[in-house]
C-alpha cells in the first residue's frame, strides 16, 4: 500500500526525519509514537506534500508520489487530520464536510440538486450522524468545542473514502472518556476497510485500534512490531523516559 524508503527531511540543519523506512500493507493499522519533536507530524507533512522530501522515496500503490503536489496526493486517496486542528471556522459543520468532496471525480462546480449531488449530500449527513455531530450540523464550526472539532476533522477526512487515512493525534486534548469514545469510533467506523496510520501519545487508544506499533526518535525508527513487544523494548522506554511521558 504505502512504501517509504530512505526518507530524510531537515529544517535549518536539524534532521526531522533521517533515512526512514516504513512499509504499510493493505488494511494494516499502524500506530506511530515517539517523544515530541521525533518527526511524527513531519512524516505526515512529507507524505501529504506539505513539505518536500530532501531525499528518499514515497510510493503509494506502485506510484511514486514523492514530488506530487498536496492536491494531487489527496486525489490519489490519502486523507489526513491535523494535530493543531484545521477547520474552516467561518463555515458550518455540514459545509466543512461537504467541501471535502469538491475535488472528487465527477463533482460539478455548480451542480445544485442533481441526483448525484443529493446522494453526496446524504453521504455528508450520514458521516455527521456517525461521528455524533448530526444535531449540530448547522452550527458554525469555529464555535464547536475541541473534541467535536476533532470529530469533524475525522468526518471530513472520511467523506472522500480515502484508501489511506492519516490521523494526527485524534484524541489530543481530550478527557479519558472522550478518548475512549474516539478510540471506539476509529476502531468501529473509521478503520474498517482501509489502511491507517495513527499518531497518538495515548497508549490506550493505540492498543485499542492498532495492530502494529512503530516508534520514532530523533527522526529515526527505533522499533517496529506488535504493540505488546515494542513497548517492552529497552530503547523505547529510554526514549520515552528521556522525553515526555507516554500519556502527556
Amino acid at each position, binding site marked *: 500500500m504505502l512504501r517509504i524508503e530512505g526518507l530524510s527531511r531537515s529544517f535549518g540543519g536539524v534532521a526531522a526525519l533521517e533515512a526512514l523506512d516504513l512499509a504499510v500493507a493493505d488494511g494494516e493499522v499502524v500506530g506511530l509514537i515517539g517523544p515530541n519533536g521525533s518527526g511524527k507530524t513531519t512524516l505526515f507533512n512529507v507524505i*501529504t506534500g*506539505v513539505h518536500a522530501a530532501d531525499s528518499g522515496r514515497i510510493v503509494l500503490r506502485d506510484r511514486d508520489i514523492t514530488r506530487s*503536489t*498536496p*492536491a*494531487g496526493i*489527496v*486525489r490519489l486517496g490519502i486523507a*489526513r487530520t491535523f494535530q493543531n486542528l*484545521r477547520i*474552516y*471556522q*467561518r*463555515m*458550518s459543520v455540514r*459545509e466543512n464536510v*461537504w*467541501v*471535502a*468532496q*469538491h*475535488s*472528487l471525480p465527477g*463533482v*460539478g*462546480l*455548480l*451542480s*445544485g440538486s442533481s441526483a448525484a449531488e443529493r446522494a453526496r449530500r446524504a453521504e455528508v449527513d450520514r458521516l455527521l450522524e456517525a461521528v455524533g455531530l448530526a444535531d449540530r450540523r*448547522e452550527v*458554525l464550526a469555529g464555535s464547536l468545542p475541541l473534541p467535536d472539532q476533532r470529530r469533524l476533522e475525522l468526518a471530513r477526512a472520511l467523506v*472522500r473514502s480515502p484508501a489511506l487515512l492519516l490521523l494526527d493525534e485524534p484524541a489530543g486534548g481530550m478527557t479519558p472518556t472522550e478518548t475512549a469514545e474516539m478510540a471506539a469510533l476509529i476502531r468501529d467506523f473509521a478503520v474498517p476497510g482501509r489502511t491507517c496510520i495513527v499518531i497518538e501519545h495515548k497508549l490506550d487508544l493505540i492498543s485499542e485500534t492498532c495492530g502494529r506499533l512503530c516508534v520514532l526518535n530523533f527522526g529515526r525508527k527505533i522499533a517496529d512490531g506488535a504493540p505488546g513487544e515494542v513497548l517492552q523494548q529497552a530503547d523505547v522506554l529510554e526514549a520515552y523516559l528521556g522525553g515526555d511521558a507516554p500519556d502527556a
Partner: protein
Amino acid sequence: MDDIYLVTVVSNIGMISFIALSAYLLLVVGEISFGQQAFFAVSAYGSGIATAMWGWPIWLGLLWGALLAGAAALVVAIPTVRLRGLYFSVATLAFAEMVRLIFEIFTYQVEIDGELVGPDGSDGFRDIRAIYDSNVSAFEYMLIIYGLLAVVLIGFLILERSRLGAIFRMIGEDPMLTEMQGLNVTVYKILAVVMAGVVAGIGGALYAHLATYVEPKIFNVMLGVHALAYGLIGGLGTAFGPLIGVAIDIGLLESIRAISGYRMIVFGGLVALLLIVRPRGLLDEAAVHWLRGRWRELRRATH
C-alpha cells in the same frame, strides 16, 4: 430637473456597485485588491473605442469591454496570484497605476464627420455618444444598468450556494488546507481574479456610455479604495454586503446636505470605527449564518 438628478445618482449607485462587487469577490478569496479600477478603466476605454470609433452597437461594445477587462485581469493574475496578502495588494496597486499612467499617454484618434474622436492622453476621451445617438433616455439607461446589475447579483447568489463559491471561501480562510482537499488553489484564484475583472468591466463600460467622457484621472486609486471599503462596510458574508456599503456611502451620506462638504471626513471615520467593531463588515459570515438559521425556522413555522 430633480428627476434627472435622481436618475443620475441612482445610475451612479448602480455602476459603482459593479466595481464594489468586483472588489468583494477578491475579498472573499482572501485578497485585497487596490486595483479594480484598472479593469473598470480598461473596459471604459475599450467599449468607448468600439462604439464611438468603430461604430459597434452598444451591446457588443459592453460585451467587448467586459471581455477586455477579463483578459487584462488574466494578464495580471498569472504572475501575481502566488503573492500573498500585502504583496498582492501592492502589486494590484502598481498595476492599476500603470494602467492609469498608460492612458495618460495613450492617444488613438480617427476623424469622424470632420471631428477627431478617440482617447487623447491626459485630455481624455470625449463624445462616447452611443446611447444618445440611439435615443435611449437616461431613465431607460438606468433600467439597463439595474437589469445587468440584477443579472450579476443573481450570478453571485448562485455562486454563493454552489461548490465554486464554497471553494472561494475556503481559499479565503485557509489556502493550504484547501490545497489539501485536493483543489488547485492557484487555478481557482486566477479564476476569481478574472471573474472580478469582468464584473468591474461591465461597470466601466456602462460608466463610459453614461458619462460620454472619460479621462485617466477618474480611475485613480481612490476609486479602487472606495470599491474595497464598500465590501468591508457592508460585510463579506453575502454579495448584498457591498451593495449595502454603496447605499450607505452614496445613498445616505450624499443625501444628508449638512455633511456634503465633509463627506470624506465622515465616511473615513465611519469606516475606521466599523473596522474596529466588525472587521469583516456588518453582514459578516456569522451574521449571514444567523440570518439563514432564522429564515429556515421561519419557513418551518409557516409550513
